[in-house]
């Protein structure tokens, strides 16, 4: 039983690391896309580790199944929502942050080719209503 408790503690500590990393990303990343990335990826790993830790302490298989179900549901939901928000923001012309922006504020700037590569073209953006974006 104590070995299980130690394993639970280690998994929860690892989960905390990922949650803190996700929040630091939310605080420090420069635009909506990268903040979205921090929230939907790092935090889901943290949640997965939490669920694993609690599965070790579960008293019945029903609890284990329910915990797994919660994680899979959050994963599916955040993947869908991340795509929806990112695509809608891109369709509205929200410019993704590049290192060229950082160059103008005094930080090290990137070679020009990289900036051209990252320039939004709206080519790969899924759009069911063509008329609204063509402006």
């Amino acid at each position, binding site marked *: 039983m104590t070995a299980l408790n130690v394993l639970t503690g280690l998994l929860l500590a690892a989960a905390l690391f990922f949650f803190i990393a996700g929040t630091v990303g939310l605080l420090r990343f420069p635009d909506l896309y990268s903040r979205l990335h921090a929230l939907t990826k790092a935090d889901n790993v943290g949640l997965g580790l939490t669920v694993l830790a609690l599965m070790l302490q579960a008293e019945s298989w029903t609890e284990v199944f329910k915990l797994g179900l919660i994680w899979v549901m959050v994963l599916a939901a955040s993947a869908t929502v991340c795509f929806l928000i990112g695509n809608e923001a891109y369709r509205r*012309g929200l410019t993704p942050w590049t290192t060229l922006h950082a160059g103008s504020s005094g930080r090290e700037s990137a070679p020009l080719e990289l900036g051209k590569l990252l320039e939004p073209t709206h080519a790969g953006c899924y759009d069911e209503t063509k008329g609204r974006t063509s402006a």
Partner: protein
Amino acid sequence: MSAFYIAVSVVLLLTIVLGLGHVFRQPGRAESLLAALLFGSTGVALVLVLGQGLGLDRALDIALVFALLAAVLCVAFVLRGWPEDDSKEDRKP
């Protein structure tokens, strides 16, 4: 062991508060949507760990409802609630 669970949930609560404080200082309605995403993942973990620490059996159901609500809220916001004149530049270069 239950003191450890409660300590973990306090740290989780701190990360949520920090994230919320930042999100509400940003311009643009889309930023507050990130708060809903934060509740969807960190909030669910908080409820699960707190439920384990306090010995609440219903915490699993509460966490499941939280996860469902966060997903529905985000989809509803993107499809209906996102104003067209939301600020385009979310941080000036």
